[in-house]
């Protein structure tokens, strides 16, 4: 249905463009770069890039190599630090001054597509299909078009202190919580007031968000009996004195001091934890939970960080080539070696060096249990109500007495467009 709609829109757009082309002087179809360019006659291309602070130097280096590899361009790069979680907002604020190629979470692709701000990546598409896992490509696609090139999984898993837990204990959250670690030591920390974390419990309980495959905007089952059980589980967890809500880096500090058994975070937390704990640091997929009699692994959103191209870039071809270059196998390996960023390239999954890294292993192990983040723009309606639910539970304002009500109102907010 949606595909047909898109086709229709495109058709009409085509017609309109055709008319505009002959009728008025406003033919603003952009001439793609690259047609005429050749090594003898290099085309001047200026590209602005957004990258994270830890990748800054690496990006400079990669740009230089891209320039060498493409004699048909005379590239002029401008690199600015805008992190993966800031880029979407920056792009929305001012698409004209935004970067041509930037990093973003794959989860925001539907929203940006709807707003017409990202470019479909089609250059050399067949090669891309063979490079990355299907899950990664799916996460970066919408309506069958690829909008970003995935370069690392963007998800969270669990680190634990080997002095406090053994490898067997961290398989089940109940076992972990039951163990007595001493007076001022916490057992487990997570950010339940963050809507990027709380879904793991609901997915584990068998609830769905936007239907089984995450494409039905008016379907969310978080308020059924399973959802209620998940909510009650979370309330019990939060009220357990051995749990600590991770806010403003408190859990990281505790973990480094050895006063916390396990913490839910991602690869970004790894270097600091490793420095503090050394060999005592373990990393695993999320533990199982027993909700309403069923035992299942906590299942968070499978999300990827990807390179995307803005829709009004002046050099679409070069920008796409650059995005693909940034995310290719060689550069993923470099990124891993420098910043231990886990790769998405299929060919790197049997690299012994990478597979010996505990955080990468744990992350890849968790992708097994993760649920693809719904790739529809309705996901926008999910974040704030889910955050409100988590905050309400953490602050003790949502209790078992009003949980059902809260879940009902959550589902209502998540599934309806605010106004028709």
């Amino acid at each position, binding site marked *: 249905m949606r595909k047909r709609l898109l086709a229709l829109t495109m058709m*009409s*757009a085509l017609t309109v*463009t055709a008319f505009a082309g002959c009728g008025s002087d406003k033919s603003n179809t*952009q001439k793609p770069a690259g047609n005429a360019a050749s090594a003898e006659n290099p085309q001047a291309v200026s590209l602005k890039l957004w990258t994270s602070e830890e990748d800054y130097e690496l990006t400079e280096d990669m740009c230089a190599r891209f320039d060498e590899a493409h004699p048909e361009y005379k590239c002029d790069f401008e690199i600015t630090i805008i992190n993966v979680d800031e880029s979407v907002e920056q792009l929305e604020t001012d698409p004209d001054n935004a970067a041509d190629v930037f990093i973003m979470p794959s989860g925001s692709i539907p929203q940006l597509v709807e707003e017409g701000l990202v*470019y479909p990546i089609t250059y050399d598409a067949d090669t891309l299909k063979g490079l990355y896992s299907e899950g990664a490509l799916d996460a970066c696609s919408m309506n069958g078009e690829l909008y970003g090139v995935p370069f690392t999984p963007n998800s969270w898993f669990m680190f634990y202190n080997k002095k406090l837990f053994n490898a067997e204990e961290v398989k089940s959250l109940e076992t972990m919580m039951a163990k007595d670690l001493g007076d001022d030591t916490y057992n487990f920390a997570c950010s339940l007031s963050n809507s990027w974390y709380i879904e793991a419990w609901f997915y584990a309980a068998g609830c769905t968000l936007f239907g089984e495959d995450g494409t039905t905007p008016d379907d969310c089952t978080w308020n059924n009996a399973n959802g209620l059980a998940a909510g009650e589980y979370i309330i019990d967890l939060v009220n357990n004195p051995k749990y600590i809500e991770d*806010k403003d880096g408190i859990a990281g500090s505790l973990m480094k001091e050895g006063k916390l058994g396990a913490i839910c975070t991602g690869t970004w937390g790894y270097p600091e934890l490793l420095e503090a704990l050394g060999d005592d640091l373990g990393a695993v997929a999320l533990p199982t939970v027993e909700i309403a009699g069923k035992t299942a692994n906590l299942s968070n959103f499978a999300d990827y960080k990807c390179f995307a191209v803005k*829709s009004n870039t002046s050099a679409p071809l070069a920008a796409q080539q650059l995005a693909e270059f940034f995310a290719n196998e060689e550069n993923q390996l470099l990124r891993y070696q420098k910043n231990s960023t886990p790769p998405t390239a299929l060919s790197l999954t049997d690299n012994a060096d990478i597979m010996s890294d505990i955080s990468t292993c744990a992350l890849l192990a968790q992708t097994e249990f993760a649920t693809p983040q719904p790739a529809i723009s309705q996901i926008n309606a999910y974040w704030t109500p889910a*955050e409100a639910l988590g905050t309400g539970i953490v*602050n*003790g304002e949502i209790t078992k007495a009003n949980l059902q009500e809260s879940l009902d109102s959550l589902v209502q907010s998540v599934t309806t467009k605010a106004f028709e």
Partner: protein
Amino acid sequence: MKKITFIKAFREGDIFSKISYLIWGLSNMVRGQIVKGLAFLAIEITYIIFMITSGVNHIENLLTLGTQEQGMVFNEEIGIYEIAQGDNSMLFLLYGVATIVYSLVVIAVWIISVGSGERARIAKENGHHVPGFVDECKALLDKKIYRTFLAIPFVGILVFTITPLIYMILMAFTNYDANHQPPGNLFKWVGLETFRQILSANNNISATFWPVLGWTLVWGVIATFSCYFLGMFLAILINSDGIRGKKIWRTIFMLTMAIPAFVSLLVVSTMLGSNGIINVLLQKWGFTTQALPFLTNGTWAKVTIIIVNLWIGIPATMLMVTGILMNIPKELYESAKIDGAGPVKTFTKITFPYMLFITTPYLITNLIGNFNNFGVIYFMTGGGPSTLDYYKGAGKTDLLVTWLYKLTKDNNDFNYAAALGIIIFVLSATISLITYSRSKAIKDEEGFQ
């Protein structure tokens, strides 16, 4: 000098005056004011050229807000899509508004040019000296100095305050919300629909609006008056006769004003967090066994913010009141002392009435300032704790103005933000209108006595 009106000038003027309605500045040029006349003409010509080349187009676009959506065409040859940029409703709206403002300015110049030409004609006919270019320039530093002085502010306010303001006001009458984001989508005029959504009682957004409005009013009144009275008390205390080291005391309290607000607020909010130093100390001292929800529980957060605001607001009032206290005539106090009035009586009979009389305008500005007190809320709680009862991300301590900010920054619901802005304006304007007219009455009464 007789007053010259636009229509009267046409009736009374000679043929040159009449033609100068079409060819601006002609009347001036004929009477010898060449430079001035040419300037008027130049303005007219630039405007006409602008309107023909793009102005008319802008006005047209303002009416439709764009018709052509962004589209894509696949280019087989190099294997990528080519994007055909569509119309951008937001820019259309902005350009349209700018064109209208420009037109209004030009119309004002037109009226001025007619008046100026007519004045030159009358001067010449009566045999007076028609001021030349140099004379007029001299006048700009003397009788007409206000023109020189106000020119820059006028242009600045026109371009960077009024134009954006009209643009935003108009936005409230469109459907420029999260689902209609340019450049991928067009938005269009929807009339008063946005206001209906906000004010009518049956949806999520009006279920947010009314409680937020209520808290805004409560906050404004409490924050203003608590700081006012306590600040006054502090100033009087420091200023009383027996206290030595007045300057040192004042400096201590002023420190909070001198440190940039965002720094002190950020620091205080970290101190009040559930693992912040205040909770840590309270537990260390044995006052509580677990962290108090200073900023995480709705009611607690509201009280906390009001108290923290005292910390910042009292010094400001204190300084202002100190200045006024110095100005209260000493004789008043001396005669009161002779009459045997105690400190309380002196305060209620002399200090307070005097203070209230003088500070009413300050109080009103302060009240309105507090309705729009963005910084305290934004840096302390960010509007939180968030709640499921409210529309997208609005929280329990959100004021209308912080909610407005969230709507533009986080939710991209510009139409609702604009409508909220208008509502805030109506609120502020009503309150100041009522209080100003009443305080005027007080002033008049004072005049009688």
